[in-house]
């Protein structure tokens, strides 16, 4: 198993370099320079600006400079906000997005696993149908609709919860986390129901029953380990989805996180910021996929024994 993990890690490095390279040269194709917006810049000033941001060097030189910078954690200066570096902006946004994502995934896991396992155990009863119907709603109502609807109901009509901001008023973290977590709760509920149903029919569960174990012990000790495997493998891709969801949720709730910075950078054509966040996001996603693969390998005794 260790060789598999090492292989995965070794594969991740060239992938990240390829992503960084591709993004860098894609961005260079973008029409218009970063200083086009400043009206009536004299040629001398433009020349100085270009020199200051190293834009007068050859493309190859810029590329090697940039890559060495990234290797040292330096994503260069922001084109849009003079004096601020991309690294600095990523570091201010990251904790916020990270916190939001953690809450969302916790909500998704708690609601999803609980209702999925329950639905599998009480198959074809009301406790199966109702959670699964709600899960279908969760999958069909996109985040950008769920968020505003929750705001409309709990924030504006019932005036129960604050509708924007992060860490300013007590309770302002609830709606964004719920919005982001709900869709994943739905997926996880379906996955854990399916996984549990498959496991519950297997021989080792019958053996456990025959041994006279309590139903709780059978479910928590024996069935869930295998039954929740699909959930574990889903967590990696889910993180990628959560990041995309954070674009929307942070925009709706005006949360100063990475997702909102990214969308703003895309609008402002802040190319260094786009470049930096893209590479950063990719690194995070590759990392989380790796983690979820390793966890799934470790939980699955068959692949654990293989090597």
């Amino acid at each position, binding site marked *: 198993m260790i060789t598999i993990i090492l292989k995965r890690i070794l*594969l991740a490095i060239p*992938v990240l370099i390829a*992503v960084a390279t591709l*993004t860098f040269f*894609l*961005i260079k*194709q*973008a*029409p218009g320079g970063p200083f086009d917006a400043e009206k009536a810049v004299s040629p001398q000033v433009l020349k100085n600006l270009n020199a200051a941001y190293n834009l007068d060097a050859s493309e190859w030189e810029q590329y090697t400079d940039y890559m060495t910078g990234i290797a040292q954690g330096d994503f260069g200066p922001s084109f849009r906000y003079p004096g601020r570096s991309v690294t600095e902006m990523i570091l201010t946004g990251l904790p916020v997005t990270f916190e939001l994502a953690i809450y969302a995934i916790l909500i998704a896991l708690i609601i999803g696993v609980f209702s999925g396992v329950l639905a599998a155990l009480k198959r074809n009863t009301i406790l199966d149908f109702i959670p699964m119907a709600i899960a*279908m709603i969760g*999958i*069909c*109502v*996109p*985040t*950008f*609709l769920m968020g*505003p*609807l929750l*705001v*409309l109901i709990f924030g*504006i009509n019932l005036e129960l919860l604050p509708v924007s901001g992060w860490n300013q008023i007590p309770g302002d973290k609830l709606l964004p986390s719920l919005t982001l977590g709900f869709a994943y709760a739905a997926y996880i509920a379906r996955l854990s129901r*399916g996984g549990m*149903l*498959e496991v519950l029919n297997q021989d080792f569960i019958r053996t456990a029953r025959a041994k006279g174990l309590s139903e709780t012990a059978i479910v928590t000790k024996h069935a869930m380990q295998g039954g929740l495997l699909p959930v574990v493998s889903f967590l*990696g*891709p889910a993180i*990628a989805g959560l*990041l*995309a969801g954070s*674009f*929307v949720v942070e*925009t*709706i709730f005006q949360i100063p996180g990475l997702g909102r910075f*990214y*969308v703003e950078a*895309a*609008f402002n*054509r802040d190319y260094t910021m*786009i470049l930096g*966040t*893209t590479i950063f*996001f*990719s690194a995070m*996603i*590759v990392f989380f*996929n790796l983690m979820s693969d390793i966890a799934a390998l470790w939980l699955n005794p068959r692949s654990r024994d293989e090597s």
Partner: protein
Amino acid sequence: MSNNSSLWSDAVGRLLKNKAAMVGAIILILLIGCAILAPVIAPYSYSFQNLDLGASPPSSEHLLGTDILGRDLLSRILYGARISLLVGFVATGVALVIGVSWGIVAGYFGGRVDQIMMRIVDVLYGLPFIIFIILLMVIFGRNLWLLFGAIGAVEWLTMARIVRGQVMSLKNQEFVLAAQAMGISNLSMFRRHLLPNILGPIAVYATLTIPQVMLLESFLSFLGLGIQPPMSSWGTLIKDGVESMEEYSWLLIYPGITFTITLFALNFFGDGLRDALDPKTSDN
């Protein structure tokens, strides 16, 4: 061939018995009809403005009300259906063409070719594609056809995996060996022998890809990176609705309901199709 057609007629029978799938199918047919006939049945043009009227709640003249510029919401939803469904079908078509060709080639040739091709798929799976689509839209402008291509280029990966698996299980069967022995060219092998036998899974997965593609498009439009005004997709309508939902909640609610019902219909129909074509998996 007779065996094959009975598989399909069995499947149709099962599909017709599945109520959720049939309701989904009827809704979809209605929607597609409305989208095609939008210029005929829409009471107003999607860009006709009545600034004096402004935003007005649903009335007999404007069944679903009007937006801030006095444009009829029902007409905009009908025209939006054209864009949203068009994106859904075209981008899924792009994904289908790439994914099926990739999967057939990888599965049929096997060995090293297969390893390299599927490793590429594995690597692409792990990348943040949504970010790349945003990047492309920023760099090359918000072009409808680019949007189709970009979304399609993202959604083909799972299709390639499914098709490869199917082809691998087919390629050692007698009819394939017989065709090989007759010296058939690779291209006609793919087209005449392999493709017809994997149409089922392809149809199922394609139906389930359409709602995902539509979600992706509306997600981009919601962020302002997709369809540009005065054209509207359901995503842009929802975006506009969110901006004014405090005063004019109908502008959010009706497009939202339409979009959600469509996604429901597509998902139910896709699930029904899967159960009908592959009864084994119907438990999941």
